[in-house]
């Protein structure tokens, strides 16, 4: 079996723009699901609202495309009512960290056995490019035309502080690593949070001097630094360059979890 067996072929082509990073993340997730040996009839994909949240509609399993920000609360109901199901949540930075921020920290606190994959494009793509809680300071968007004045959230730090058992960050450039991280998340009981930084050429890149989709992917490659290296540099008292994207497995632990498969 390959990941293509999990695609809902009669829904294709998808709605994503040319050059979008979301398809890469769906691909990595389905590859991880296949490697984990999950069964279609025992797997449920859940999402909220936004570009990322359209992903479950392209997958053949049972799926619930819910309201903005609430995917984790719906997923909690599914998983608690039937822990035998593997429940995977697709979300985005606006869905997860703005309107859904409260559900995010509480799902992590409960450490409920979900795998949460966040496609962080640092922008509201679906509605045309408004600033989000992860839009970098001074980045341009339709609602930050003079540069974002707000500091951004670090989603992984948030998940770690709130109690998730597994936390990892990769980008659309790092497909092998991202796939392995999602697989590790699927295999870790409790809440697994995998942040996938993705390019949004239409609504982020276009306004922020990434003229081609690959320019932003190159940026991820150039600014990504493994967490091990970051920690080593910190120990050595060396300065971490600004705009560094900390990559890798940021937390793996064994806090008490809820809704774990019997």
């Amino acid at each position, binding site marked *: 079996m390959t990941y293509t067996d999990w695609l809902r072929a009669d829904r294709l082509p998808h709605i994503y723009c040319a050059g979008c990073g979301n398809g890469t993340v769906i691909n990595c997730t389905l590859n991880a699901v296949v490697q984990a040996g999950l069964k279609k*009839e025992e797997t449920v994909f859940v999402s909220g609202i936004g570009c990322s949240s359209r992903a479950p509609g392209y997958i053949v399993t*049972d799926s619930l495309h819910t309201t903005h920000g609430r995917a984790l609360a719906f997923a909690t109901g599914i998983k608690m009512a039937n822990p035998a*199901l593997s429940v995977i949540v697709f979300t985005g930075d606006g869905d997860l960290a703005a309107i859904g921020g409260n559900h995010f920290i509480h799902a992590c606190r409960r450490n409920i056995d979900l795998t949460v994959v966040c496609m962080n494009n640092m922008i509201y793509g679906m509605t045309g490019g408004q600033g989000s809680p992860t839009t970098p300071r001074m980045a341009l968007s339709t609602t930050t035309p003079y540069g974002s004045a707000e500091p951004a959230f670090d989603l992984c730090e948030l998940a770690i502080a709130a109690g998730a058992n597994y936390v990892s960050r990769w980008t659309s450039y790092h497909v092998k690593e991202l796939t392995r991280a999602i697989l590790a998340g699927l295999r870790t009981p409790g809440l697994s949070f995998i942040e996938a930084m993705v390019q949004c050429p239409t609504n982020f890149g276009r306004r922020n001097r990434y003229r081609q989709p690959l320019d932003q992917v190159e940026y991820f490659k150039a600014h990504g630094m493994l967490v091990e290296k970051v920690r080593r540099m910190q120990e050595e008292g060396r300065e971490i360059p600004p705009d560094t994207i900390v990559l890798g497995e940021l937390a793996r632990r064994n806090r008490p979890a809820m809704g774990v498969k019997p």
Partner: protein
Amino acid sequence: MQGNVACAEGALAAGCSFFAGYPITPSTEIAEHMAARLPKKGGVFIQMEDELASIAAVIGAAWTGARAMTATSGPGFSLMMENIGFAAMTETPCVIVNIQRGGPSTGQPTMSAQADMMQCRFGSHGDYSIIALSPASVQEMYELSAEAFNLADRFRVPVFLMADEIIGHLRERIEIPDSVPKTERKPLPPGELPFHPGDDLVPGFPRFGAGHGVHVTGLTHDERGYPCATNPRVHEELVRRLVEKVESKRHEIADYRVTNPDAELVFVTYGSPARSVEQVLHDNPEKTIGHLRFRIVWPFPENALREFPNARAFLVPEQNLGQMAREIERHTTVPVIRLPRFGGALHTPEELVAALEALA
């Protein structure tokens, strides 16, 4: 037994196996009772971070096949509205209990009201239809709580138990039956599209984990469940069906009690004001005063008004400014007298008698 406890017990008797809620006066005893009882019955109780999450978790649980419920009051009810619309759009069977208190806003947390009757019918955006029951005793808290699940499963809609603080906190002796009537959720026939409606306009239920591979979305969707949000015909057909599947059965769904149908002066009630009217009828045994009491308020059963052919006036005591009275006015040429009483106190029998005498 307390009304709120009876509500929880009725739900358990109906096979409710999932409760998600958030503490709010005056409904909290329902959550507390479920927290104590559900785990012992193999069910799940979860206290969520807010009411938006509570109704979301209930909808999620319902899709696994569980009979699922939440309970709240005014402010929490307002927070639930978006996801209630999601339940209506996705045809998710679930039960929402509202122990009504004084509003708007924080209002009167410990005092009774019936001012969310229109909100339960129309509170979420868009056109849809729902079913709402209104208990007037602790016994009915038990019975109607159980029946709410049958209606939710049969019509695949959110069903509301619209009680008020007085009934929720009332303590009365009740009779608990050995079992309650139970309607099964109609399963999805093999090979059928997941949102293809049957003759009754209600699609079979493709529970998650049963191998149907169903995509459920709050977007306008076709019979496959696939988003189809820019096709006017698909949207119109879907929304008309969501409304018609309930409204076309409203006379079948109707549940009301008629006392003294020959009367000229008729009280129309639901919930706790019925208790004051019962006292008035008890004190006037000549059968000259009529009483129509709704146990189901939505869909509105207008035929019930015709049970009183001699009616000269319908008197409607409500704990609001006349929400259901307005609905009654839409369906009759008989004068409708609004008897609003709010602030938390129940109508006294004396003030109801005074209203009758004013018409004599």
